[in-house]
């Protein structure tokens, strides 16, 4: 042949198939054959690689499917029932809820009145209900003060959610400040309140086996 051979040979077909596989997997949109050819090294045959890939995934849990003019990888339609978790809507907790949760975590066991005192506003019934329903807080012992108000404590579920080994591992104010989460200077003596609180209730997590309401 008179033609000079290309400087680099095209990768072998199996390699081209790998490349198409990776591109289809990572792409945020279906990819056209023209697009594939543009992204593959010079001399590749995207269509052939795509066909091979498509055959390889036949009967698997994932398929190579055509979407209009383009191609994408999708989970097999018969396995859709497994995907329900991926589609659950996740929402951020409201500010009221996260603040209430933070107060319970740092000050437990903690009454509703105490939460309101720290937040400076009334706590709506819905906020506490939501946290109870999420099983991030639960009822603790009643406080032995007039009216015997119920207290709230955080749960094991809460610890799991936030990746904590115990509530005593919650960073104190000093740590928050050190990590740059707290900008203002502390009032003298206020710095270690979180720690002191934890020290006040060294056994707060030893009560997990208690019934919700001892009486």
């Amino acid at each position, binding site marked *: 042949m008179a033609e000079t051979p290309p400087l680099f040979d095209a990768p072998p077909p199996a390699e081209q198939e790998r490349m198409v596989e*990776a591109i289809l*997997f*990572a*792409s*945020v*949109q279906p990819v056209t054959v023209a697009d594939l050819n543009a992204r593959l090294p010079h001399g590749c045959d995207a269509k052939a690689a795509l066909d091979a890939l498509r055959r390889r995934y036949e009967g698997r849990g994932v398929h190579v499917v055509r979407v209009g003019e383009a191609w*994408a990888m*999708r*989970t097999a339609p018969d396995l*859709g*029932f497994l*995907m*329900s978790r*991926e*589609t*659950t*809507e*996740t*929402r*951020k*907790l409201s*500010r009221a*809820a*996260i*603040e209430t*949760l*933070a*107060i319970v*975590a*740092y000050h437990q066991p903690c009454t509703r009145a105490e939460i309101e005192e*720290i*937040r*400076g506003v009334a706590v709506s019934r819905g906020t506490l209900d*939501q946290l109870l329903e*999420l099983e991030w807080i639960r009822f603790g012992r009643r406080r032995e003060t007039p009216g015997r108000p119920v207290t709230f404590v955080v749960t094991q579920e809460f610890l799991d*959610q*936030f*990746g*904590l080994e115990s509530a005593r591992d*919650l*960073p104190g*104010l000093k740590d*928050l400040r050190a990590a740059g*989460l*707290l*900008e*203002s200077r*502390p*009032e003298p003596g*206020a710095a270690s*309140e*979180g720690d002191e609180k934890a020290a006040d209730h060294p056994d707060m997590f030893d009560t997990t086996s208690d019934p919700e309401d001892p009486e």
Partner: protein
Amino acid sequence: MAEVSTLSDHVADRVAAEALIVDVDGFEGPLDLLLTLSRTQKVDLMQISVLDLARQYLAFVEQAKSLRIELAADYLVMAAWLAFLKSRLLLPPDPEEEGPSGEELAAHLAFQLQRLEAMREAAAQLMARDQKGRDFFVRGLPETVERVRHVRYTASLMDLMQAYARLRTKDEFRPFVMDRDSVMTMEEALDRMRGLIGFAGEWTDLASYMPDGWGGDPVRRRSATASHFAASLELAKAGRIEIRQGETFAPIQIRRRDG
């Protein structure tokens, strides 16, 4: 030839020294500077001469001083420590003296330098690894198949901590309100005492001037005592009364001063 090599050494030293001076802000603390200096010894950190290193560091600090470069305090603390270490290493050990030997201190410094260098290398190896989003990739199109109406609330530890930090920060700016029920001001005490002092011809215990209802609760007692004491000082200053106390912690007594 020897002359040429010393000359070039000299130049190289100067270039190195200048580079150090120019970079003084670039060092991440004294340990980092020491590590850089130690590289000029061109030996394994295990065999490093801490004595030479101390000399180099002290020379560097001197040079910085002569160039009027402000060195942060921790550089000077390290300089003082190295000067001490140098003297320990050079002088024969004093059997009378307590504490670790110069060799032990030098070995620890060498360990610290080795450890810092090791962490630097580890960090470099870590960053050189294949990384997500750069060398390997996640699924680009996570699937949205079925619509299951099921709301899941999430919050991260960061959210939680920030919420708490926000609350506590808010607290710090809350106006400071005194609980006035249990506080007696000096003015109140002064008013009371001005009325009563006319009857104090004899030495009387200051505590007896305390108003009813302020002696029981410790908080109220403390406030009333302080304000009455301050008021009696005020009266003494004005020349209206005399004060005496037999000994430390003995009752304080006052008497009208006729004048």
